[in-house]
């Protein structure tokens, strides 16, 4: 009897040990396999050199795993323009609320009148200080809270400093809206403005393809293909925001808002070149000198978001601020 139990016990012990060894082997093997795959993947990735926000040459992975299964435009949109660090300077002294920037932007991105990638705000910092107009695009932060919280990598920071949004990826959770301290993001609560036109084009496109009419189809292709750098066509249930007109930058043009301004408010350029160009006068000036001489600043520096949009203070304003439009809303003191 006792022998029997002993036997039983030893068999059980043996099985237990075997089980331990087996599971250990499987886990170890899995870990080694994962490590091997990781190393292999690392080798095939190309490293590219980029300038960091701190002006240091760093090596970053040339290939992001999330880039699989993306269209060419999306891929190109995620990479950014090599060697660039885009920056915007807004001279508050010159802004007289012409709103041409807003109009041009909304036209380019198929937005409704209440949807703002850039919004000209009437500001007054305190009771006895002067009111002023402040155009507010996305600040394209170098430490972007929106990118940190995005669960699916739909919004991302490019090497050239631009924060973009991929509306084919966006799940519409709006965590980025909650996280952005600059209220820079909008959401498509309804069908986007030109959705019907887009749907018609899409239908026509597939019709042309079916007919074998490649020439006309090619012409239409641009209108039905999602361009992540323009964020058009816009999508219901997804986020949109200012893109620093990444599509224009790619073809060597200034952003829509910058070019549209009649009052010389905007400067836009490349931080690496230390040069910015005024969108109205087309005059190119040294960025560091412009910021130094005019005491340039960034919005909410204390939040540590490191915006890529600089403001020049509204001193010696070129316009009188209309009395009746003083900011006196309850939302903001």
């Amino acid at each position: 009897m006792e022998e029997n139990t002993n036997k039983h016990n030893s068999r059980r012990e043996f099985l237990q040990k075997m089980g331990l060894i087996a599971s250990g082997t499987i886990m170890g093997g899995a870990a080694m396999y994962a490590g091997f795959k990781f190393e292999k993947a690392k080798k095939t990735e190309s490293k590219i050199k980029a300038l960091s926000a701190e002006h240091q040459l760093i090596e970053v992975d040339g290939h992001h795993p999330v880039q699989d299964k993306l269209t060419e435009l999306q891929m190109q949109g995620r990479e950014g323009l090599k060697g660039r660090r885009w920056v915007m300077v807004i001279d508050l002294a010159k802004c007289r609320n012409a709103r041409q920037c807003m109009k041009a932007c909304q036209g380019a991105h198929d937005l409704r009148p209440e949807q703002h990638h850039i919004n000209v705000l009437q500001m007054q910092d305190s009771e006895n200080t002067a009111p002023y107009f402040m155009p507010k695009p996305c600040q394209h932060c170098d430490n972007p809270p929106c990118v940190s919280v995005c669960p699916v990598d739909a919004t991302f920071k490019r090497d050239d400093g631009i924060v973009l949004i991929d509306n084919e990826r966006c799940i519409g959770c709006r965590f980025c809206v909650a996280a952005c301290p600059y209220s820079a993001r909008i959401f498509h609560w309804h069908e986007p403005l030109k959705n019907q036109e887009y749907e018609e084009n899409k239908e026509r496109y597939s019709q042309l393809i079916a007919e074998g009419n490649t020439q006309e189809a090619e012409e239409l292709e641009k209108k039905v293909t999602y361009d992540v750098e323009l964020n058009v066509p816009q999508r219901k249930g997804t986020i949109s925001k200012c893109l620093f007109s990444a599509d224009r930058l790619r073809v060597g043009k200034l952003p829509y808002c910058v070019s549209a301004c009649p009052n010389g408010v905007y400067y836009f350029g490349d931080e690496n070149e230390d040069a910015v160009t005024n969108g109205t006068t087309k005059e190119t000036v040294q960025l560091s000198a412009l910021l130094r001489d005019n005491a340039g600043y960034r919005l909410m520096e204390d939040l540590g978001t490191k915006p890529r949009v600089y403001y020049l203070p509204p001193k010696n304003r070129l316009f009188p601020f209309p009395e009746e439009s003083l900011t006196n809303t309850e939302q903001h003191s």
Partner: protein
Amino acid sequence: MDSTLPVDAQKSALKKIIDDVARNIGINKKFHAWMGFLTLLLFVCLYAYYIQLRDGLGVAGIRDYVSWGMYIANFVFFVASSLIGMLITAVLGLSGVKWITPVARIAEIIAIGFAAVAGLVIVSDMGRPERLVYVFIYGRIQSPILWDVTVVTTYVLISLILLYLPLIPDLKILSRNPMLPKWLQKTYELLSINWKGTNEQYQLLHKAIKIMSVLIVPVALAIHTVTSWLFASTSRVGWDSTIFGPYFVTGAFVAGTAFLIIAMYFFRKNYKLHDYLTDFHFDKLGKLLVLVSLVYLYFNINEFLVPAYKLKAHDAVHLKALFSGHHAPMFWSVQLFGLLIPIVLMLFKKFRKPLPLMLISLFVVIGSWFKRYLIVVPTQEHPFLPIQNVPENFKLYQPTLIETAITVASFVLVLMIITVLSKAFPIITIWETAHEKGIHEPEKLSIDKAE
């Protein structure tokens, strides 16, 4: 003393327990009526969700500035209420509190109902629900949403295990009960995975329950802490707080305990369980509710008094809206009727009797729901930069009928889960109750009886 109980007495005592519990298993007319009502309501509310899917999230009152509204507030409430499972089974269970025996399973069922539906509530808030799978394909670990998905799923799983483990002996006990239909007996037999009730099995069971109870503590703390971080990880006024984690967790215990009391009251009444869910249990839970409410009150004082003392520019705008602005009626109602007055009332023994305690708990639960609304919504009405050049309905959030209906749907689903689970399984644990009454080997006795 109990161990000397004669076998016949044990048998008859066990028979009473089993009869009392088994009577409520299965489908009856009341169940049909109640589930029919819930199903009807659910379909009406699902139609609202259909409209939202068709026309976009714009059918809800949320807009670019207040972009998280009732759905997110409701999500926070659901996660909060689900924490009751952990509070009862783990915190009280592990510290050896005896009176939780008849309450634990109800708490666990509530936890599963709320935690499971919380995930759906989040989906109803998504602009692109069909892309939900992206969270798993493209998930980025630095997003608190990923943490939330991970821990809520884990919590549901552990809660299911914690519901199932103590059920095993009961399923065996009931598997030969002639009061139940044959197919149910067979299902029970199958689910009881060859349970015999030997000492060795009991040791294993106790050990497993203990391990799970320990495991669920950090997971439960994590689900609500992470939920609070959805807000606290931003720099928004009113959310940018370091105490949001414990503030949410303590608030969760308040909401959960109150909901448990309400559920107990209805189970006691409808399932005729007066002998199991006694005045004593309500008294104890009333005291528990006072305790957790006091802790929550303490966190409320910290959360509002400290910034109100300093009145930093943006804080001032936010607090003014809560204290004397257009959120003031809701804010003070919640604090008074949902927290302060219940605390004071429940200090008196007569208010801890079942009916008054249930009514007080009703106020606490409603207060808890609106408290989440007040945490989520007002902050977004006061961003750092002024809200300009947008229509009026962008500035102040006004919930619509459709989003209210979709929110009601989530409650209907929770009630359905609780109802079905409480009808499919014994709502009171038979073996633990039997053991406490000195009935040994209830498995054997119950089978003897059947034969």
